[in-house]
């Protein structure tokens, strides 16, 4: 029976209603005569506490509240890709058609176009036995993506007694009917799944394949694996959003779910404007054909911001269950945590640190645990992954605040953004001394097999130069660079070259925005080679001034944007040129000695 009650109290997004004894926790309810969407978050006697996903301005006690009997769910089926949703899966384009340029309230929408027809090819036939999660057939959702129609994960084992033929259907079409002990169940081309409940899987694997993002500092120095977790905390202006956009653009995953959670409206617009024109380097198709956006900007209702994270991750899991690699980007988890704090405050719960609720840590853990590389339920056998990358916006760029400290406990790759680097316009301003990756050993095998066996060693050697520079910097700060011997000055020089030539990467440059693994490796090798050659030259008596004046240095620094991925062989020529210049330096010394 669906509950029917009345509002007794309103304050911002929080509403209390009485007469609600039959409503369930986390059930979706319709609030007020305008039927605003809300969710029950606490029950006391027959009073239900409801968080309302739309503005409550004008709502008053006495208005009706009606239960729907359903938990907050998303609709999963063809048509989700390419959409932009608000926090509770309402398509923003449909809202715009109904309420104009500004978001109105109580707008009823459907998550996907139920009238659109798709060409369905069956994967099962009458007599087959299926279980929850089994593939029933395929439709081409976008030219980039063949969508597997799945039986809901909680579907009981059963025999197919009726199956649709290959044809074009609307997604409400029943494509299979199963029977088990006389119970018949009809399966359509979509199903619903509650957002707060992780979608089940058969088995979980260790992540071992790197997610290639084309960003040098990520792929080479602090890699993330497919199915892994990463966080990117940083003060404002340090480039969180730009880095996340870069990952969403270039990551070698099949599907990208981008959650704009309490962030700027223009940033979502930027994605919407840019992605249809950007071409995926691997498939040659527009990036929008693999992207789903969930946008609950900072000025949209705060409760829906809390839900947006769950909406996004459930969609990601659904595509994972088809056997795809999915990247989920959440910008920013801090705004989600603030939404939790705001609701918790309205519920008058006892606060923990900085007013955040005591369950902040467990909510964060639950969210990041929904990442993983898994074998999906049902047949045929397939495996997919969800990689979660979350931005954190620490107040005052202070990494000891609760959201950052709790997040660090549940992630394995940590990209620490540094305000100081951002101020000196070193982008991406990922601090190479504070950041780390827990997947380094796991992914080194992939690099060895797919790019070059030297990867692990070159990475270590170049990183070592950066580490030595970090220690020497202290001395320089006190005594000036001239106090160092030439060998150490050389370390500073090469570290500077690595910073400019490799770590810094311009997202807005046509060439530099994406750097292939092959090019990354060659660039690192050039730097390491330069260092070794210089060391040798110094030992042979060449002065550091002459080394610094070598014309090859400028070429090394500009290779990132002057050499495209297709022309990586130019880097081999550059290496040759570098060696030649070094041997000429050596000869000059010999001449001097002879004279």
């Amino acid at each position: 029976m669906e509950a029917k009650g009345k509002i007794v109290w309103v304050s911002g997004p929080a509403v209390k209603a009485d007469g609600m004894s039959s409503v369930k926790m986390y059930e979706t309810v319709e609030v007020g005569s305008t039927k605003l969407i809300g969710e029950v978050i606490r029950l006391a006697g027959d009073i239900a506490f409801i968080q309302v996903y739309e503005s409550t301005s004008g709502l008053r006690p006495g208005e009706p509240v009606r239960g729907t009997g359903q938990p907050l769910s998303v609709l999963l089926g063809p048509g989700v890709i390419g959409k932009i949703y608000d926090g509770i899966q309402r398509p923003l384009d449909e809202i715009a058609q109904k309420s104009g340029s500004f978001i109105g309230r109580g707008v009823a929408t459907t998550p996907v176009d139920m009238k659109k027809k798709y060409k369905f090819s069956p994967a099962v036939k009458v007599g087959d036995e299926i279980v929850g999660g089994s593939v029933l057939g395929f439709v081409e959702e976008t030219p980039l993506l063949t969508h597997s129609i799945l039986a809901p994960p909680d579907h009981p084992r059963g025999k197919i007694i009726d199956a649709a033929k290959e044809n074009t259907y609307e997604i409400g079409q029943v494509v299979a009917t199963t029977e088990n002990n006389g119970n018949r169940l009809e399966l359509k081309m979509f199903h619903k799944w509650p957002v707060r409940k992780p979608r089940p899987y058969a088995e979980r694997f260790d992540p071992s394949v790197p997610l290639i993002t084309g960003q040098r500092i990520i792929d080479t120095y602090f890699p993330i694996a497919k199915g892994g977790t990463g966080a990117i905390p940083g003060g404002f202006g340090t480039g969180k959003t730009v880095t996340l956009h870069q990952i969403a653009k270039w990551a070698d995953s099949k599907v990208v779910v981008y959650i704009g959670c309490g962030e700027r409206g223009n940033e979502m617009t930027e994605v919407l404007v840019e992605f249809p024109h950007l071409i995926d380097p691997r498939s040659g198709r527009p990036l929008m054909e693999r992207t789903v956006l969930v946008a609950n900007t900072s000025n949209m209702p705060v409760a829906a911001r809390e839900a947006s994270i769950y909406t996004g991750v459930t969609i990601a899991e659904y595509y994972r269950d088809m056997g795809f690699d999915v990247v989920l980007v959440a910008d920013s988890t801090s705004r989600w945590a603030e939404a939790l704090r705001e609701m918790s405050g309205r519920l008058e719960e006892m606060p923990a640190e900085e007013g955040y609720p005591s369950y902040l840590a467990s909510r964060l853990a639950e969210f990041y645990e929904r990442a993983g590389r898994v074998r999906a339920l049902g047949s045929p056998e397939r495996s997919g992954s969800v990689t979660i990358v979350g931005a954190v916006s620490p107040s005052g760029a202070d990494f000891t605040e609760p959201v950052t400290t709790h997040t660090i406990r549940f992630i394995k790759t940590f990209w620490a953004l540094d305000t100081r680097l951002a101020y000196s316009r070193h982008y991406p301003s990922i601090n190479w001394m504070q950041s780390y990756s827990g997947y380094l050993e796991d992914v080194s095998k992939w690099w060895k097999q797919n790019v070059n066996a030297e990867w692990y060693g070159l990475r270590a050697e170049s990183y070592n130069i950066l580490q030595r520079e970090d220690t020497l910097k202290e001395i320089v700060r006190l005594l000036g660079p001239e106090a160092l011997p030439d060998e150490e000055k050389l370390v500073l020089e090469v570290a500077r070259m690595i910073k400019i030539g490799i770590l810094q990467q311009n997202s807005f440059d046509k060439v530099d925005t994406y750097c292939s693994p092959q090019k990354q490796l060659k660039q690192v090798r050039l730097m390491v080679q330069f260092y070794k050659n210089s060391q040798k030259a110094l030992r042979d008596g060449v002065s550091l001034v002459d080394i610094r004046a070598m014309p090859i240095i400028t070429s090394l620094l500009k290779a990132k944007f002057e050499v495209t991925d297709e022309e990586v062989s130019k880097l081999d020529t550059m290496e040759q040129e570098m060696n030649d210049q070094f041997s000429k330096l050596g000869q000059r010394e010999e001449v001097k000695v002879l004279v």
Partner: protein
Amino acid sequence: MSETAAGIEYTKVAEIKGPLMIIDGITRASFDELVEIETPNKERRLGRVLEVGFGKAVVQVFEGTTGLAITGTKAKFLGKTMQLPVSQELLGRVFDGLGRPNDGLPVPVADKFLDVSGEPMNPERREYPTSFIQTGVSVIDGMLTLVRGQKLPIFSGSGMPHNILAAQIARQAAVVGTKEDFAVVFAAIGVQYSDAQYFKRSLEESGALRRSVLFLNLADDPAIERIITPRVALTVAEYLAFELGMHVLAILTDMTNYAEALREISAAREEVPGRKGYPGYLYTDLANNYERAGRVKGKNGSVTQVPILSMPADDITHPIPDLTGYITEGQIVLGRDLFRKGIYPPVNVLMSLSRLMKDGVGEGKTREDHMEVGNQLYDAYSRAQEVRALAEIVGKAGLTGVDLKYLDAGDMFEDHFLRQGNDENRTLEETLGRAWEVLSTLPEGELTKIKDKNLRQHYKGSK
């Protein structure tokens, strides 16, 4: 209790504390509803419902609760949210912080009534901002480009010339190649009389006042009114932009006073505080104001926002500048050191940023080398600052030849590029020309952020 056509009147005041009044025996009131309050002396004030239920309503009184009493105070619930009458006639007028005429003229005839809280702009219907605004200020045009529809705040400190800079931007702002002028919506939020007068005079002298709308809540006006002032101003800005198709520059000064008013209400409601006593929803609340900027698909106008805030004790990590920076599309930070050196505008470029610059400049919009020059200037000045710090410890003798060149470039940047008169309006060509003069003092090999092609065309230094 008595019911009239205009609303329901209640007389049972249960409690008055700080800016809040709690009314009992409520039978019909809605969240966010506008309330008209009559004091025992028959003075009228406005208020808004913050919380309603179980027969009680918590009302926030904009003009403060001084003079209110438990008996004799009447509260009329008007059955609507706070709305502002808008029309083209608002241009050239001056209003108080709640939108009532302040210039002795009658209330303008309304074309429409708009809810001051506004509605969130649908991101799907936003037009991405890409049109360069020339402000005539080199440091802004060259390195921190403002584009139409952007929200770019000025972070300042007490005593620094943020108002002079904002007024200069308001006078000089122009979209290159068009004759369109900006309409200016100015909201004074708890600022001193002299600051508001300076702004008004500056608009008057340049002839911009007739295309401006001013909302003044001065330092001695009721603090709680400040909650509404930016909302009223932005409602007008949105109306001018999206209904009348004008390009609007909205200047809000000083948002710190706004946040303090918010804290006062939160404290009176005994809410659990976030950082420094500010409410946990400060971010959301600020965003509801700042996000009211931008462009809309299919509409001609735009709202460009320049909020000004003073950083308490020049601390950029204070919650107000911190949360603002997370919402706005960059920030212009004024630096105490440069101010002491007598440089105007004292913009600390290294801490400043314009997120939308990349989309507003370059080939076809400004000049092909614009972005690269901006980046290289940042790089050079940042290096110069490092060298300066080093020179203070080890002396100039301990520096290398290249370092010394950076020192010179840093000085030249401050004197030749950054420094300019507060009535000096430089073209973009002049700004970029000056930038190249600064960069040309460095060896060509140092300019690693500029493509060879652009170097060949513009670099004037020695190889």
